[in-house]
């Protein structure tokens, strides 16, 4: 291809629609991934993230929209013509081939000679730090080792893009965290574009340069991890990523994103917040507030009155379960070692927050 290197691994999904019967599994999703970028597709099951990945891979054909890889329209090409790498959720090493034969398989399919095949397979195996395992059969490897071999097999032919479909979900927690960092390092080292599907928000935030959050087939928000956490644009994103308190109420006047608003809570109180999206007057509104952004002070007259019902100590922080006067339950988190007041259960406190930390959404979003 005559494209410069910086274009080769670029992926564009344009207006993708995929229906399964009456259900829209993917509903007009558009997103772009630049060459060498690590993008996570994050969402609960049924959000359409896997369908998008399978459409990029070529195992699903969309009802509408296009998929471009390196500027080339591949919407209708079969998977074996797309030159992509993929690591699957379940272990897919071929059980009748040794580790080395597995890694050499894609090279064999590309007509690479036997000697070069073996050399490149061995090099790929060293990249995933399993240099001594080449002669083993897949069944003799642990789950983590198998996924590393699967990775070596997916990158040995230098594909334009590496697709990963929840590759760590079958591993236990410690190994998973170790592998997250390892995959991230490997991706930087070889500079490959990665599209990584996961339902685990921590995994997405840890590994990805950018995260696309999906729900019910719709793209909710795409951005760097910090944006998603600190400036969620829909109520779903605010609730799905990290912990959030939601307070419900109504609004007198319509507002545009970024406008300061004053929400009338159901108990009659008022809450100062910022509109995170376009809000219409008279509709149900919910305000999202992160537990660690709540200031908890003993006594005083400012802010919302509440009573501590439980204090849960977790080493690096203490989580407070609070009951406001109207019965609303809120969570607050007080970091350890910052010298902040840690109230006891039963204590009456006052809650306050910065206006910018309270983000108002339409209740249905």
């Amino acid at each position: 291809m005559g494209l410069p290197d910086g274009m080769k691994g670029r992926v564009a999904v344009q207006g993708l629609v995929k229906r399964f019967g009456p259900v829209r599994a993917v509903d007009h999703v558009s997103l772009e991934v630049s060459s060498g970028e690590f993008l996570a597709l994050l969402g609960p099951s049924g959000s359409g993230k896997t369908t998008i990945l399978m459409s990029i891979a070529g195992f699903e054909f969309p009802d509408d929209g296009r998929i471009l890889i390196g500027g080339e329209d591949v919407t209708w090409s079969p998977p074996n013509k797309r030159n992509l790498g993929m690591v699957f959720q379940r272990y897919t090493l071929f059980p009748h081939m040794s580790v080395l034969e597995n890694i050499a398989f894609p090279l064999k399919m590309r007509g690479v000679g036997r000697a070069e095949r073996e050399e490149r397979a061995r090099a790929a195996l060293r990249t995933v730090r399993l240099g001594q395992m080449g002669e083993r059969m897949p069944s003799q490897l642990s789950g983590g080792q198998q996924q590393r071999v699967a990775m070596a097999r997916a990158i040995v032919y230098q594909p334009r893009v590496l697709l990963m479909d929840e590759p760590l979900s079958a591993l236990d927690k410690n190994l998973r965290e170790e592998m997250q960092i390892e995959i991230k390092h490997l991706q930087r080292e070889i500079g490959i574009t990665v599209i990584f599907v996961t339902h685990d928000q921590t995994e997405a935030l840890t590994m990805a340069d950018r995260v696309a959050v999906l729900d019910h087939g719709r793209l909710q928000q795409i951005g760097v991890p910090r944006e998603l956490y600190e400036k969620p644009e829909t109520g779903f994103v605010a609730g799905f990523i990290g912990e959030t308190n939601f307070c419900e109420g109504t609004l007198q006047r319509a507002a545009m994103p970024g406008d300061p608003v004053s929400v009338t809570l159901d108990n009659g109180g008022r809450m100062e917040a910022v509109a995170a999206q376009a809000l219409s007057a008279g509709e149900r509104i919910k305000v999202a507030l992160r537990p660690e952004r709540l200031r908890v002070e003993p006594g005083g007259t400012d802010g919302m009155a509440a009573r501590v019902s439980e204090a849960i100590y977790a080493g690096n922080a203490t989580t407070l379960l609070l009951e406001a006067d109207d019965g609303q339950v809120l969570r607050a988190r007080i970091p350890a070692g910052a010298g902040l007041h840690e109230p006891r259960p039963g204590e009456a406190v006052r809650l306050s927050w910065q206006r910018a930390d309270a983000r108002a959404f339409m209740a249905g979003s």
Partner: protein
Amino acid sequence: MSQRPPRFLLGGRRYSPAASLLLAAPFLLLVAVVFVLPLATLLHESLFVPGPTMAHYARAFDEPVYLRVMLRTVRIAVFVTVLALLLAWPLAWVMSRSRGLGLALLAAAVLLPLWTSVLVRTYAWMVLLQRNGVVNQLLERAGLIDEPMRLLYTEGAVVLAMAHVLLPFMVLPIYSALKGIPEDYTRAAQMLGASAWATFREVIWPLALPGVTSGCLMVFLLALGFFVTPALVGGPQQMMIATLVSQQVREMLDWPFAGALVGILLGFVLVLTLVFKRAVRLDRFVGSA
């Protein structure tokens, strides 16, 4: 109170050797009385009647009539196996990729004949293949032939009918082997650049091979000793070894020679089974990068 290990249960679901033997005893006894004993008697007669002799075995190989029957038996069994494999593979493949009602219907199509008497199925083939049978009538009406062809009592008819009768024994092992290959393997192979043909050659076929081998072995061995179908669908020109044995026993009353024929068939089957097993096991370790 002293603790005594239980006599039969070794713990969990494992039984002691004594218990295992006891549980298997009724079956073993039956096999010994109705299978091993008569077979041993027959083989004994073939070697020791009238005195210790190899004459009965020599006769089987010396006389061209008998040699022809044996060669024909092997040839028909080979054709039956190949035809059954060709018919069974696509069917097993579709079954392994179906679910629900489709799978139930296909499974019924495979299993129902298995539950029907071989005799009934063979008579059905006779009805189809006879001189004024369904096949000849159709061909005539279509204008493909002017007068009825001779279909029944040919080797082709024997192969076709036997392949049909034995088909389930080919379909089921291949189906279970294919069923055990996750679809993810096919996807992974395609992703790695394999065409449909390469995926079949490099992944599906090697993984299904144990099922294919056991299906072929089963059909081939059953075909070697098949009696009813070749006797009814084939004529005297298509006589197979089982019919020959029956003839020797019932018409010639030559038990020693019948015993020799049985001994030859048995020896052939044993050797073949061992060779096949060895071949399959070796296949797991052979492979190229």
